[in-house]
């Protein structure tokens, strides 16, 4: 076979898309609820996850946890452990991690297992012939410590808070606005630490070939993960290959290289054998990232006409010493609602508890439900229907920066959503009762910033008229395999079964990776561009303008000529490379994804239990690439929101900062019975400023707001405001009387 003919397209989003290519293609596969191409593998257990496919000769590592919360490891019973059955090595290497890398770090996180910053921090890796032997030995590890736990800070109330100057903002005079307002609320809310608890715990297997390491792991962003692993090991990224063909959920916990990957690589290097390291669920809870707890003060004011005059949002979050990430709680507050006088405050406290990092919609996931609950309080104070109150305060342009919106569909979502949900049946607070149950309805807006991240992909059209998509993008359960297949099929006019999508290999062109809800839009745009480059080449071969070329079902059609792609290719392979980059449209416009969420709840007057009876949401997030995976993302996000409102909380022992409920029996995520019927509607939407596909993020948007709608529904049911998440029955009982 001859060398492929290479073509490429790079596009920087400096201007809104006017080409509307995906509205002009003929295949009609994009947007359909196509089944996942890898679905049969997943349901038959033949899609192998990180820890399910080991090279021959693999041995097993188990991480040892620190039993103190702060201090130094001064000694270790290495000799005793080495004498245990099967034990091959006890590794305490200074390249091991204190905590996983933050998303997109592209360099190693804080390293060194000798200094302890939090209880449960990995301090050694025990490697043995079998998994059971490794675990047995690790459980018998005993460290000597210089124990400084007494100096540890474990509760936010005792932490020292920094207020990074770049994260404070103000405009006008909020204090004065609050004083002079007809109605104002000044309230404080609390949200707890939470854990991603993805179905597949972190796991990796590493093997070396000379100076080159291959790591099969469970990661979301292979491009930066490769750089992080290389930096951690002190080798060149060229000598690192990461494979993550299937990822059993990430939610942000697998954005950065983590303990298991680095430890496995170090051990494999030392032993000259492949080494597999998987985190136990309990280790996943205490050694990967948590979502920070937050304290949030919200100040809102409005005139007698219900028009807002002031918006203030101050947040206090925490992280380990020397971690730069802090949950951007106030991210959507500057642009969501009107108000001349504004203030944003951000405070980071240092705690000796597990590292905080990105978890699904970092910022908005906990910031939006809280502001939406406070909005409800203000609407109530002003005596205005909560939907109407929001509608009155949607700004024309970003009220903080003055930038125009690329598109703002919040009003459409609220109006349409209220109608589908039957909002008009909502009654006064505390007015609906069925037996022992108080019934209420609540609304919340859903807002999440929209992002574009550089991404590259290859689309290869083979002589037989089939195509292959190649990029290092990951599918973390979101549906990347589906949508990338559909995009290539749409642009090349192929039935989806003639397109194969290969992902999750860091040797392939570097994509955005999965995170921040930018994965579909960014990697999708790169695939679209790569396919478009191929398409343009086909047009040339068909002797026509690309705009006059129709590609459908494997045929190229121009004027009255119709040829199969194989005929057009004449034995050649066309290889298109597409690259998308963000540009001016991310700077000169405020981009966001929009939605409105509605909840109906029942609250028991006997036990304080809260049941969600119904959820509905209307979203506007640009072009929908696959109706089924988009809907699944929203269902998942809204269930996430149920957990946030009612169940999820890491319980921390205030004496040593340890997470006591670090398993799925005691860390409660919603069970099937907690999840009611969920209605999801997507508005027909395009955002030409977002990217050439005019699509936007979905997966995170869906979990921003749900919890607000639920607590607002609880307030409508009971007449009581609950300002501490999750609303567990003990909190409700206290107020029921």
């Amino acid at each position, binding site marked *: 076979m001859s060398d492929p003919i290479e073509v490429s397209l790079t596009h920087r989003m400096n201007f809104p898309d006017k080409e509307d290519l995906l509205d002009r293609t003929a295949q009609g596969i994009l947007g359909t609820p196509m089944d996942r191409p890898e679905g049969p593998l997943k349901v038959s257990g033949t899609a192998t996850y990180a820890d399910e496919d080991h090279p021959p000769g693999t041995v097993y590592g188990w991480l040892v946890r620190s039993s103190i919360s702060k201090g130094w490891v001064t000694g270790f019973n290495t000799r005793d452990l080495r004498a245990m059955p099967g034990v091959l090595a006890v590794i305490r290497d200074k390249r091991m991690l204190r905590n996983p890398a933050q998303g997109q770090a592209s360099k190693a996180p804080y390293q060194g297992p000798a200094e302890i910053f939090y209880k449960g921090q990995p301090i050694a890796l025990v490697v043995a012939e079998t998994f059971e032997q490794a675990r047995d030995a690790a459980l018998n590890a005993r460290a000597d410590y210089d124990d400084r736990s007494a100096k540890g800070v474990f509760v936010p109330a005792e932490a020292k808070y920094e207020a990074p100057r770049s994260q404070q903002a103000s405009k006008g005079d909020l204090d004065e606005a609050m004083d002079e307002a007809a109605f104002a609320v000044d309230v404080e809310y609390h949200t707890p630490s939470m854990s991603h608890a993805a179905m597949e715990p972190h796991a990796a297997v590493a093997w070396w070939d000379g100076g080159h390491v291959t790591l099969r792991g469970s990661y979301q962003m292979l491009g930066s993960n490769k750089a992080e692993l290389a930096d951690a090991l002190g080798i060149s990224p060229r000598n690192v290959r990461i494979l993550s063909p299937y990822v059993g959920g990430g939610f942000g916990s697998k954005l950065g290289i983590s303990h298991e990957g680095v430890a496995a690589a170090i051990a494999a290097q030392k032993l000259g054998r492949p080494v597999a390291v998987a985190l136990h669920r309990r280790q996943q809870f205490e050694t990967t990232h948590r979502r920070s707890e937050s304290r949030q003060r919200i100040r809102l004011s409005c005139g007698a006409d219900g028009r807002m005059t002031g918006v203030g949002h101050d947040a206090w979050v925490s992280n380990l010493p020397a971690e730069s990430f802090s949950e951007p709680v106030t991210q959507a507050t500057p642009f969501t609602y009107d108000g001349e006088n504004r203030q944003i405050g951000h405070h980071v406290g240092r705690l000796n508890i597990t590292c905080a990092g990105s978890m699904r919609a970092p910022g908005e996931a906990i910031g939006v439900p809280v502001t939406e609950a406070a909005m409800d309080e203000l609407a109530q104070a002003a005596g205005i229907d909560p939907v109407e109150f929001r509608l009155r305060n949607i700004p024309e342009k970003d009220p903080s920066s003055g930038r125009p919106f690329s598109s703002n569909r919040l009003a459409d979502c609220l109006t349409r959503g209220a109608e589908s949900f039957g909002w008009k049946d909502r009654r006064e607070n505390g007015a609906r009762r069925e037996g022992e149950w108080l019934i209420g309805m609540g609304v919340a807006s859903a807002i999440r910033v929209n992002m574009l991240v550089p991404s590259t992909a290859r689309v290869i059209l083979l002589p037989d008229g089939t195509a292959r998509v190649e990029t290092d993008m990951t599918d973390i359960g979101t549906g990347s395999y589906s949508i990338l297949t559909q995009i290539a099929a749409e642009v090349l006019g192929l039935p989806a079964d003639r397109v194969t999508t290969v992902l999750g290999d860091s040797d392939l062109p570097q994509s955005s990776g999965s995170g921040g809800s930018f994965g579909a839009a960014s990697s999708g745009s790169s695939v679209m561009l790569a396919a478009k480059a191929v398409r343009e080449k086909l047009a040339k071969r068909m002797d026509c303008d690309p705009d006059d070329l129709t590609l459908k079902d494997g045929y190229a059609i121009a004027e009255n000529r119709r040829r199969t792609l194989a005929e057009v290719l004449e034995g050649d392979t066309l290889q298109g490379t597409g690259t998308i980059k963000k540009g001016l449209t991310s700077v000169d416009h405020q981009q966001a994804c929009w939605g409105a969420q509605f909840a109906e709840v029942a609250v028991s007057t006997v036990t304080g239990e809260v049941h969600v009876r119904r959820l509905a949401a209307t979203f506007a997030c640009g072009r929908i690439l696959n109706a089924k995976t988009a809907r699944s993302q929203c269902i998942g996000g809204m269930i996430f929101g149920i957990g946030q409102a009612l169940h999820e909380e890491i319980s921390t*022992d205030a004496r040593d900062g340890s997470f*006591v409920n670090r398993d799925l029996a005691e860390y409660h995520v919603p069970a099937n019975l907690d999840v009611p019927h969920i209605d999801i509607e997507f508005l027909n939407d395009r955002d030409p400023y977002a990217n050439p596909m005019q699509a936007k993020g979905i997966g995170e948007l869906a979990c921003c707001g749900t919890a607000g709608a639920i607590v607002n529904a609880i307030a409508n049911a009971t007449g009581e405001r609950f300002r501490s998440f999750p609303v567990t029955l003990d909190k409700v009982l206290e107020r029921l009387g």
Partner: protein
Amino acid sequence: MKAFDYYRAESPADVIGTDARPIAGGTNLLDLMKHQVETPDRLADVNHVGLDGIERDGDGLRVGALVRNSDLAADPSVREGWPLLSRAILAGASGQIRNRATTGGNLMQRTRCYYFYDLDTPCNKRAPGSGCSAIGGVNRIHAILGASGDCIATYPGDMAVAMSALDAVVEVEGPNGRREIAATDFHRLPGDAPQRDNDLQPGEMILSVRLPAPLGGKHIYRKVRDRRSYAFALVSVAAVVVMDAGRMSTVRLAFGGVAHKPWRVPAAEALLQGQAPSPDLFDRAADAVLDGATGQGHNDFKIPLLRRTLNAVLAEATEGSK
């Protein structure tokens, strides 16, 4: 997991009087062994010893120790005569776990106290004499009744709470022969020996549980928890109430999630028995149940919660009857 010997027992005789640890469904024991909270040297697999039938016993029923929770809950005679038991079982764990879990194993399941699972913290139940981390720690799920200064853990199960209310009897056999233990007395209070959950002696094995003749009346198992399924009880109330001419002729009550054992208070039942239902009376019964109740901080709410749940259950059980 610590290495262990394993053998398959073909009959109870292969287990009784040995130092081997029975393993039935394994849904609790295996977890604890992986964490090395339990480190038995020898496991006797009891899944093939028989004892897996549900038989008539006069007007009552004898349930083999190896009957799976799912089978017991679905058994037509249980559903008809002892629906309380069926409901309590179905309120517990998940379908998958109930398919494996057995009658004997369920009675023997250990506490869910967070610290019991954590080898790096003091726990008198796991390591006698080391202290109790739950006192002064996170104790939202802990006991409000019958706790001691050495342990405030609860027995977490549901099935045994119904068995206690139904006056079931646990039939066990040891090297010295068979004996019977009232389900209510099977589990013990922690006192100064919290490492002992119950009265089963070394070398003894549970053979079966006997249910006395059906009581009739209304059977209610109300389990209050942090999510609607797949969570242990914060408080549960098991109640059987038989009404006769507007009065409660028979009352049986047991409570889960509040003590180291299913909590039964004969004085509260006596107070109600023979009386016409009234909110005031229910409240006095709750007073009797909660006599001596103490919160540990995070679990204080269980005290009012138990009262409210009991009141609601009694109201439901007596509602509409004359």
